[in-house]
């Protein structure tokens, strides 16, 4: 078990007269190589939770274990944790600052105190992994398109060679093609490199398409923790907490209501298509 969140609670402003419980008794186990989707409306505690996972916020109560070690132990290497659990914030391209793409990606590993050769090797590898062509390496990161900037920012985290990659809405503000590109790139990292991925997202369609397991947060608690099909069965409950099921689920529901005997399980376009074709063929 790679990362264990054990009875974690977090209270903001605990010593004031307006304490806010952001996380309430969270239990979560993350295994190596998983692709997890973390969903919840604005203010449900998603970001607070992921910031606990690399030690940016300390839990008010409870413990977090990374590779079985308690990260709150006095002799635990926090710096190592932060490089092993990489966090990509929302709009990460706002954090680009160097004169060229390559130096920007070098910044992280350089700060780990690695030899220059190793730093450059890692930066090169990371840029290749996110699909940035050599010709862009010595351009200013500010001259790139939105999608490219975001790739460079993600490369900056990959160059730390994390075991867990946490991305907070990596596709916000990108055009549809850009969204697909970034997400398939992330899926690839998980599949090819075995990186564990936690994807914070507002898009149910994306989550349905890419992740193995969904964790639904509401008011600082975990409401569901299961595979997408299972979670989206409860779409009425999801709506109550400001979320929804993928559009496909609704289409299938309506079809069924209209007397077309389809299953309401499909959550992706491909599955829906197969299901409808199957029903049509049976009818013949």
């Amino acid at each position: 078990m790679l990362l264990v969140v054990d009875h974690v609670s977090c209270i903001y402003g605990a010593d004031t007269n307006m304490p806010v419980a952001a996380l309430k008794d969270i239990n979560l186990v993350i295994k190596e190589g998983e692709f997890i989707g973390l969903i919840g409306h604005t203010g449900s505690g998603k970001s607070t939770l992921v910031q606990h996972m690399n030690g940016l916020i300390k839990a008010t109560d409870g413990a977090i274990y990374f590779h079985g070690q308690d990260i709150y132990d006095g002799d635990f290497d926090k710096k190592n944790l932060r490089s092993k659990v990489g966090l990509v914030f929302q709009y990460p391209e706002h954090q680009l600052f160097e004169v060229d793409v390559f130096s920007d990606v070098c910044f992280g590993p350089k700060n780990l105190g690695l030899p220059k050769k190793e730093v450059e090797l890692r930066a090169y590898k990371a840029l290749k992994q996110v699909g940035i062509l050599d010709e862009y390496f010595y351009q200013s990161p500010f001259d790139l398109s939105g999608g490219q900037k975001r790739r460079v920012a993600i490369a900056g985290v990959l160059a730390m060679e994390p075991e867990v990659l946490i991305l907070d809405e990596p596709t916000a503000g990108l055009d549809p093609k850009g969204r697909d590109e970034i997400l398939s790139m992330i899926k690839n990292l998980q599949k090819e490199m075995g990186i564990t991925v936690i994807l914070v997202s507002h898009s149910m369609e994306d989550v349905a398409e890419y992740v193995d397991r969904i964790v639904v947060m509401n008011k600082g608690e975990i409401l569901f923790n299961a595979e997408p099909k299972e979670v989206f069965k409860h779409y009425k409950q999801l709506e109550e907490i400001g979320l929804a099921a993928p559009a496909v689920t609704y289409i299938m529901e309506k079809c069924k209501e209209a007397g077309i005997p389809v299953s309401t399980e499909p959550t992706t376009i491909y599955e829906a298509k197969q299901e409808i074709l199957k029903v049509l063929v049976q009818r013949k």
Partner: protein
Amino acid sequence: MGIIQTKNLVFEYIRRDEEGNVEGFTRAVDNVNLDIKQGDFIAVLGHNGSGKSTFAKHLNAILYPTEGAVFVDGKNTTKKDNLWDVRRTAGMVFQNPDNQIIGQVVEEDVGFGPENMGVPTKEIWERVEESLKAVGMYEYRKHSPNKLSGGQKQRVSIAGVLAMHPKCIILDEPTAMLDPKGRKEVIRAVRALNQVENITVILITHYMEEVIYADKVVVMDKGRVAMEGTPKEIFSKVDKLKELRLDVPQVTLLAHELKKSGVKLPDGILTTEEFVKELSKVFGNR
């Protein structure tokens, strides 16, 4: 002439290197001709870097044309004397709600615009009230904006523009940073303004589902208008849209995929109701 008209609009900017030497020119908007009528709901689509935001910034004189001209309610935006009229006629809402709210209290924030226009105090309060009611945020008038959700903040931003009594609102990806609920709230508010108050809406977005109610969709690519038509016409061309890095609503895509596999469905299905109706026909015929 409509409320907004662009004539051969061109915008170029100069690219410079670090020392400030000219590296070249980029044509961000290239010969755009549009005539938008009062009360229209226009959606603008286009991939990142297609020029849609640059175009939008011409509509309330944040940017000025390099060539051609923009007329807002018949007034040329390049003339300095017209600036206030142009900005008052065409209000703009941006992507990030946190960048647009300055007041400590919701109603103060909404009153900021009319106050700057020199509207009498009594009328400011009337305008604040009606604007907040129009976007469904009246009950939050005494709240602090930073305690609101993203969708609520964005609706306050829209109310802030409304209080200036514009004839036209331009929204540049107003839902990009919101969760599904917030997105719905904002789009519902925008549609109500268009239908009830007859305010012209120009909505720039990356979410295909948001544009199916528009009167007209304009697709931009490389600074030009690449496609123009009703949502039905535009979303019938699934492959062309994909080439332009765009997408179609999920239900349209599903119908398109089924059609490719031989199911007899019409092009350009936009809503679930339509889809179910058409599929029922196919199903009944078998």
